[in-house]
């Protein structure tokens, strides 16, 4: 069994997002980069499959040198090898999906696991697109996964319920929060990862069709207002404001 886990490097959820002077990209100063949280579920699931029944786990990311950090971390957590597809992490999910698809070609992978979306961009597109390009079955937003005898069984979150999808391998599965509880890397894993090499391949050949035209922050929230007076006055004023301004009544 051969599993590819495709990971994306994303800004830490606690990063204070700033727009760069070009008005369409993220200002990278002060940004702390992390592995996409949904990708962490995908990686953890791959490692658990490996531990349970044996599998080879390859971690892959599309990006530049900075993104190697994500791969180092994946190796520390238990991935067997890591591949950096060199190229600008594009705003265009189709370009990324094409790059990953051409990497997969002829390599005999049985399963591709990814996060259901990368935080920040929130396109939730690479997984489904990849499956379409490859012509493989696909289950997204998966919270439970079983892989056995050349087939998979996946529970996916749907509006107000769960849906169980069955299909043959090879397949593409995207992970949702709840799939598992990702572990921390062990010290042994961290040390071993430092000794492994990251394979670097040219990820070019899939020109982006889309690009960001503009990036804007949500409008700043107006300051709060303090209502003065004794409790009865405050209550009356609040009621009035709820009626006249907020129009909740």
């Amino acid at each position, binding site marked *: 069994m051969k599993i590819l886990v495709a990971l994306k490097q994303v800004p830490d959820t606690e990063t204070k997002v700033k727009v760069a002077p070009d008005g369409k990209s993220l200002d990278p100063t002060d940004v702390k980069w992390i592995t996409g949280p949904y990708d962490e579920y995908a990686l953890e699931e791959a490692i658990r499959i490996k531990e349970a029944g044996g599998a080879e786990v390859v971690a892959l990311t599309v990006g530049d040198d900075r993104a190697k950090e994500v791969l180092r971390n994946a190796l520390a957590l238990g991935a067997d090898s890591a591949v950096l597809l060199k190229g600008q992490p594009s705003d265009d999910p189709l370009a990324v999906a094409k790059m990953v698809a051409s990497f997969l070609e002829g390599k005999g992978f049985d399963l591709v696991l990814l996060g259901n979306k990368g935080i920040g961009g929130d396109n939730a597109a690479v997984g489904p697109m990849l499956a379409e390009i490859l012509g493989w079955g696909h289950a997204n937003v998966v919270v439970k996964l079983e892989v056995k005898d050349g087939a998979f069984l996946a529970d996916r979150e749907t509006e107000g319920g769960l849906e169980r999808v069955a299909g043959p391998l090879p397949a593409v599965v995207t992970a949702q929060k709840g799939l598992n509880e990702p*572990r*921390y*890397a062990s*010290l*042994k894993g*961290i*040390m071993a990862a*430092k000794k492994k090499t990251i394979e670097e391949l040219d990820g070019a050949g899939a020109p982006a069709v889309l690009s960001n035209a503009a990036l804007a922050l949500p409008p700043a929230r107006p300051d709060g207002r303090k209502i003065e007076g004794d409790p009865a006055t405050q209550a009356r004023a609040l009621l009035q404001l709820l009626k006249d301004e907020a129009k909740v009544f």
Partner: protein
Amino acid sequence: MYPILTDDQLAIQQAARDFAMAEIEPGATARDQAHEFPGGIIRQLGEMGFMGMMVPEAYGGAGLDTISYALALEQIAYADASVAVSMSVNNSVACAPILAFGTEAQKQKYLVPLASGKEIGGFMLTEPDAGSDAAAIKTRATPVEGGWVLNGSKAWITNGGVGKYFVTMAVTDPAQGKRGISSFVLDAAQPGFRAGKPEDKMGLRSSNTVMVSLEDAFVPQDALLGRPGEGLKVAFGGLDGGRIGIAAQALGIGQRALDESVKYAKTRKTFGRIIGEHQAIQTYLAEMEARVQAARLLTFKAAAMKDAGRTCTVEAATAKLFATEMGSWICDRAVQVFGGYGYSREYVVERLYRDVRVTTIYEGTSEIQRMVIARELMK
């Protein structure tokens, strides 16, 4: 940073910090108030390799150096000193003496589970009437068929109610005085090992510290650690590493108190300005920073010498003495910077003030460190 840290050491420090801030820090105050032992956290630390950091991988440890250990312990103590003391005891005074003095069979039997975090370990030297004066212990080991039985009381035993294997000192030959003391590895899973209620301590309230009474507690022949009569050699063999560990613990608490103070000094206003703009507060912050930096250098220096295989008795004692005394001073000033709020359980500096206090007492009091240093100087 001095000594220049290697990539590996920085990676360990980062891993410890990430885990400490995400998993240990958030519940620290609640655990302190509930006196709740952080069992789940200790188990996770064990799985990650933090409970046997300097034990070779062949014996279930992480195979790292003393500097990495000090860096990690500082980060853990920064989040919660109660977790740090459990970790320190397991590493420094349970794993280390078994690694140094144990036979191959003892290492397989006791070290592997302790270093890999499957079991928690401890160290039983102190007794109600013998602390600094370790040679005054009275616990008796009496030969019986197949081994010994131990009788006596051990006081202040960290992990005493939660651990499995304890490096234990007892008198085998009363006529020989301090050369009549031997070390054993005692299995706590027996009726003769009775752990008392957790002590009602000032600080480190979520760490497990108990009195243990030994009533015919059995140790088999092959659980004797080192040679008969060399018990104190085993007990003191790991002291340098233990002192470096406690220095790192105090450093972590001190750094936290400093960081909390700086944050508070930037927001609290009196007389129309933030208190960090008052000169008196600035001198406190500057002095705290200077002491933290000095303590860090002393701790790293002792660790680096130990890693180089050099004698570091004076350096380790100096680091322990200075880092713990400065840690206590810094936490005292931090409470001052916070004013009345520093005296409230709502603010973390109140816990830091209580937690740091014991660092000048255990693993050799400050007075004992001064004796050790002066004795070396006078040689």
